[in-house]
């Protein structure tokens, strides 16, 4: 009964995030329309010749990427063009955006309820298999998002990307990874396992949320360098690059030690369960890869002569390796860990 309820709540959750996505898209569209009506410099007028890609505008303005701590004033050429995100200026857009946040909150409640009912039905925490793990990770991601939003309401534009990521990830969890409730195998009945999975869930959620400003930074920064093709055309709609970059770093700085600890807890558990703390099982290998890539990101960010863009690309790459571990390895490669999922 509980288990069926949980499955229904999953649908509610996905519909909720979908509604949020539509709301954010509407906000974007209405804001865009308004901006077009207002005297915003038209994007089209700025033909590539006007700002040759070879001479990126970032080079003239205060460099976006070369300073370890760029001033918070929005970087980039002529003021007025990139003066931060244009706040959604039309009233309808504001309503759409608020409704989207409301939908996100409602979906998050359904999301939590989905996890809780699943946990009650299983009689254990909801991270016994890939499906439950993904639901938990995305829930952490959405909680982080709401917390960040409460502190920085102007970040609402991130919502379109957050809700898109939620719909895709939860949809994939439900479609690809759905598993009937099963009790935990003896090998998983360990307190280190609980510590391991819960920290990895939280760290993955933070990495997930951190990937959103990372991607948006790349969009914005690409736009500021004069790129005008599709994802970069969204540039003017997202917050200022420096702020996005800093938020990206915050999330990763927080997630990285937690992830390190989570992997270490997994190694302690593996020692007790399998007799070795590390065995280059595919999951372990991909955790190692993610760890090294994120370490590379932190390094790159701390190195003054490495462009911020390069560093942020490493963060995005890090999240791609996390996704590989969450979906790719569980689905395509078999290993000891796979028995947690069947």
């Amino acid at each position, binding site marked *: 009964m509980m288990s069926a309820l949980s499955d229904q709540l999953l649908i509610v959750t996905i519909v909720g995030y979908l509604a949020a996505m539509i709301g954010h898209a509407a906000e974007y569209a209405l804001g865009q329309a308004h901006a077009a009506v207002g005297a915003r410099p038209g994007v089209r007028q700025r033909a590539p010749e006007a700002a040759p890609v070879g001479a990126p505008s970032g080079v003239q303005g205060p460099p976006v990427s070369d300073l370890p701590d760029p*001033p918070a004033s929005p970087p980039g050429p002529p003021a007025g063009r990139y003066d931060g995100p244009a706040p959604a200026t039309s009233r309808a857009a504001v309503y759409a955006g608020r409704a989207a946040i409301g939908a996100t909150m409602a979906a998050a409640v359904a999301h939590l309820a989905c996890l809780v009912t699943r946990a009650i039905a299983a009689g254990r925490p909801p991270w016994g298999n890939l499906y439950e793990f993904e639901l938990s990770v995305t829930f952490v991601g959405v909680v982080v998002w709401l917390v960040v939003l409460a502190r920085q309401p102007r970040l609402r534009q991130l919502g379109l990307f957050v809700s898109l990521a939620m719909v895709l990830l939860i949809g994939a969890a439900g479609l690809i990874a759905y598993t009937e409730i099963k009790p935990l195998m003896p090998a998983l009945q360990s307190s280190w396992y609980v510590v391991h999975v819960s920290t990895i869930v939280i760290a993955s959620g933070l990495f997930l949320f951190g990937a959103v400003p990372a991607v948006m930074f790349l969009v914005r920064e690409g736009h500021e360098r004069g790129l005008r093709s599709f994802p970069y055309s969204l540039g003017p709609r997202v917050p200022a690059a420096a702020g996005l970059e800093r*938020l990206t770093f915050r999330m990763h700085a927080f997630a990285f*030690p937690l992830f390190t600890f989570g992997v270490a807890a997994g190694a302690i558990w593996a020692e007790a369960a399998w007799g070795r*703390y590390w065995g280059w099982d*595919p999951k372990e290998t991909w955790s190692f890869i993610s760890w090294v890539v994120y370490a590379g990101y932190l390094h790159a960010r701390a190195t003054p002569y490495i462009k911020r863009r390069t560093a942020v690309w490493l963060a995005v790459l890090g999240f791609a390796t996390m996704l590989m571990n969450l979906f790719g390895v569980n689905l395509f490669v078999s290993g000891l860990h796979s028995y947690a999922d069947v």
Partner: protein
Amino acid sequence: MSRGGRLASAVVATARNSWRQLTSMRTALILLFLLAVAAIPGSLLPQKSVSIEEVQQFVLDHPTVGPWLDRVWGYEVFSSPWFAAIYLLLFVSLVGCILPRAGEHWRAVRARPPAAPRRLDRLPEHAPARPVDGAPATVAAAVAAALRSGRWRAVARQDETGEWTVSAEKGHLKETGNLLFHTALIAVLLGVAVGSWYGWHGNRLLVAGPDAGFCNTVQQYDEYSLGPRVTGAELPKFCLELTDFLAEYHDSGQPSKFRATVAVDGDGSPRRTRTFSVNDPLRLGDANVYLFGNGYAPTLRYTDRYGRQQTSATTAFLRVDDALTSEGAIKFPDANLNPATGERDPKSQVAFEGLYLPTVPASPPFVRSAHPAERLPGIMLWAYRGDLGEDAGIPGPVYQLDKSRVESGQLKLVGAEPRLLRAGESWTLDDGSKVEFLGTRQWITVSVRHDAGQELVLVGVGVIVVGLMFSLFGRRRRVFFRLAEGAAGASAVTAGGLPRTDYAGFAEEFARVVAAVAPARADTVPDQRERDGRDGVVAGSADAGGTGT
């Protein structure tokens, strides 16, 4: 300069240059990236260390690239020379990075905070002059003392113009944490190395019962491996006997609990009983015993045509599925010895092939167990008679009959059909001999292991996590005060603050520190809060001017 001298200095220059290159941050990044990329084939190709069978299968399935991949260590990526080359270079670079930084840090920690800049209003944070009671020298001392009690490293001094200043600094823990973290990476690498040099393990199957125990010597393992610095004679001495094994299952057949009870002796201490389970290995000082698997060993009693009984009890059957359907073979090479001469009759040795079903299903076919627990145990037996061929001194396969002997007719199936026996039932063969199924014993597979570097790795990882947190959350910052002669016995105190690292909350901290260590006279408190309109996106504007470290 002589030619040799020039050559030598060129070599030195090149070496110094390469060293600088190797220890540069860019190289560290490239090596990190290479390390990540190099690990990928290790997750996509089957690895010998994980499953040698999968590797063999893969090579069979890919006759062209298979052997080629083997030549470039594709199936042992993590012990390949190229993987080692990357991480060794990375660690050399790391050492080259840590040493100078440690020296610098050591000096920085012991140095006095730098002199206060002349113009404090040029600093990212600034508090305008405020009157504080007392002469500059007294106030300076008081400010420095107050800062010190807030764990700032502070010094009060007069600058070249004679004005009193206070410089204070905080946050060296960031760099300390960073150095600890990088050093601990080396400790972990050493721990891994020690583990592989001095570690060893042996795996075996252990049937319950006093007649089936084993002692920790390489001969008694089914499979073992010793690190390059260990010899078999160095293995710690102890013996184990499985006295009890508990397995519980859900109705679905999924296991819920395993617990093995063993008697330990032979290590100099008196015999004692210990239990262990999955996730909770038996820790015996220099060796740990892990529980990996379990199954059944059926007990058959065979009464030969001369009426002599033999019991076979320690032959494990191997599981073929999760419901513990198990198959195996039990041999009676000494069946039908001629009672007069005591000689074997090579034509009438006896063996049984069996399929053991811990829970026989309600209806045929009786080929798969319905549940892994022994709810309704039964065994399907195929009886063979003939020449087992084990006198030749070549031991046959343990878990099966030698199929070639069946094909060649040296072993013949007795009766056309197999027979299902439940516990206690017997089957009388055509020659009047009889086989009885008495029940089963449990068996477990254990892995006995020792990893000498494990503790070092654990400590290293602990330091890594703690060092990382200091490193990532620590914030270096400086505050400066200038104390000019003020009116009516007061001092005019100006303050400036400089965050050395990304630090969004510095403005608040600066305001708090200034208010706390240099409390202005009550009549003139400038409002600190009104300054920056910090609605800035995401992070405040406080960290402009920080230069990182």
